[in-house]
């Protein structure tokens, strides 16, 4: 099966600044792929190259097998783009915005009218379709941009930070819409919200300073964090003594103490039985597995927190 998106050694340079460096990426058809990274990581540059808005300095990029350098028009027939800025035409009504987009895609009036009716319903904008976007809330404007990108039924949908600047409620509603259309097309989403990537994406790539640092499913990324498994052990007393005991065990890679709670990182989950044996008779109130967060993965890979 052809990959929906494929890049080989993709590089973009602005003078001496490397915005993208030898990026290799493969996105499966029909999946939701999340590109995670702080501002300035190169996410938007990558999207601009993939959507043919910008030319790479070197390397290759393909959308559904079409080379971005030579098949730009073919690619633009296949893609829908939700840019960071709303880019809605404030002098056209919501419906007229969609109609213009359909005409630019050379759709027949009969076809696009029906499609726009469906999308207006889907996005909950049917009652406001003859209003101007300026009168919409941020969330509604965002939904309208998503609807515009879907008019011509694209095979690949690019969402560049689709929820940036939205309040939590609007953000959740955009997430719901994205999930509702998942499966019918490939979705390539960039974000700097870790929760968004974790919630929506089948696979995630993390990039920083123009380079891909890691990619995989959320679980794979968490698992490869340092190969260890984290447990929280809460004691009813003598916490320091038992922490010292655990610290000397070979299969424990890391240990931190916070009050009555000891966090231990095990080499692998099989070590847990050794730990339980070692703590035989100790006043243990609770042992629980602690899930790694994507932010921890990010910090461990980049050495810094997510820059907003």
């Amino acid at each position, binding site marked *: 099966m052809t990959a929906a998106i494929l890049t080989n050694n993709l590089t973009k340079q602005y003078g001496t600044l490397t915005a993208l460096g030898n990026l290799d990426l493969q996105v499966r058809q029909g999946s939701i792929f999340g590109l995670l990274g702080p501002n300035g990581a190169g996410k938007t540059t990558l999207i601009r190259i993939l959507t043919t808005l910008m030319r790479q300095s070197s390397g290759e990029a393909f959308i559904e097998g079409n080379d971005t350098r030579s098949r730009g028009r073919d690619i633009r027939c296949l893609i829908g783009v939700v840019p960071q800025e709303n880019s809605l035409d404030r002098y*056209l009504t919501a419906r007229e915005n969609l109609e213009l987009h359909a*005409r*630019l895609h050379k759709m027949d009036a009969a076809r696009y009218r029906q499609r726009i009716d469906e999308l207006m319903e889907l996005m909950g904008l049917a009652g406001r379709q003859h209003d101007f976007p300026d009168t919409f809330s941020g969330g509604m404007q965002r939904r309208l941009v998503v609807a515009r990108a879907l008019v011509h039924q694209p095979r690949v949908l690019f969402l560049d930070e689709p929820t940036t600047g939205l309040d939590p409620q609007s953000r959740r509603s955009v997430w719901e819409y994205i999930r509702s259309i998942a499966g019918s097309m490939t979705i390539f989403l960039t974000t700097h919200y870790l929760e968004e990537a974790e919630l929506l994406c089948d696979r995630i790539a993390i990039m920083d300073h123009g380079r891909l640092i890691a990619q995989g499913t959320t679980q794979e990324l968490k698992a490869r964090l340092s190969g260890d498994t984290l447990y929280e052990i809460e004691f009813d007393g003598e916490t320091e003594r038992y922490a010292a005991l655990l610290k000397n065990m070979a299969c424990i890679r890391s240990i931190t103490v916070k009050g009555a709670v000891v966090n231990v990182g095990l080499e692998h989950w099989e070590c847990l039985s050794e730990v339980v044996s070692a703590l035989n008779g100790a006043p243990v109130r609770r042992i629980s597995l602690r899930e790694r967060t994507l932010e921890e993965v990010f910090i461990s890979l980049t050495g810094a927190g997510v820059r907003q």
Partner: protein
Amino acid sequence: MKLQGALAIWRRDMLVLRRSVLSEMVAVVAYPLTIYLAFGIGMKSYIGLVEGVPYSLFIAPGLITMTAVNAAYSESVWSLWFHRRVQFTIESYRVTPVSVSEIVVAKIFSGFTHGLVKALTVALVIFAITPFRFAPEHLLGYLAFLIPGSAFFSCAGVICGTIMDKPETIGKVEAVFIMPLIFMSGLFFPLSSYPEKVIPWIRALPTTALFEGARQALVKGSFSAMFVLQIAGMALITFVAAVWIFRLKMSD
């Protein structure tokens, strides 16, 4: 080049013009009409005949032409700047199968149409409230100047709207280049008023070919093929330049 996309963008611009046509026309008519009343009527008794015609008739064709080219330039420059820098709609066009050339052609035609529509409005108002008249058969010759003239200014507007990122720069260019080009070309006075040595330079201006040629065509029915070729050539050159510059800017 397929023009289906260009037509879609042009239709969008015309829809927006139609929506705001009343307020647009009031603003468009006010400026040339004020000039006509102030100069044409106010100065008439002091100036008398210019090149054998009353002063109010001498300046009327120029005011109609000025409206057309000003509107063509303003629409192109501001529309392109606004859609590129404020509303980001140019970017939303560029992720559709429409080519960059189609976008620029659409914007040039929109400016051109604005120019013609607004010139027609001003002409109708001038006819309605002033004694300015011309022989209907002169109209064709006049349009031979007005159409390439509007196209030239529309292309110039597209170039400025493409290369200028700050709105204040657009205003400065208008004040330093566009208005002097219009006013120096004999809009309010005959070219013979210039010193002998300066006249060849003034005649070389594309706006002189436009304003002088248009006036002679409308008022006297004389047709200067040289002037038409000059303005049509300039329109063609600026069209090629506008497309090239826009493509270059978009590939940045």
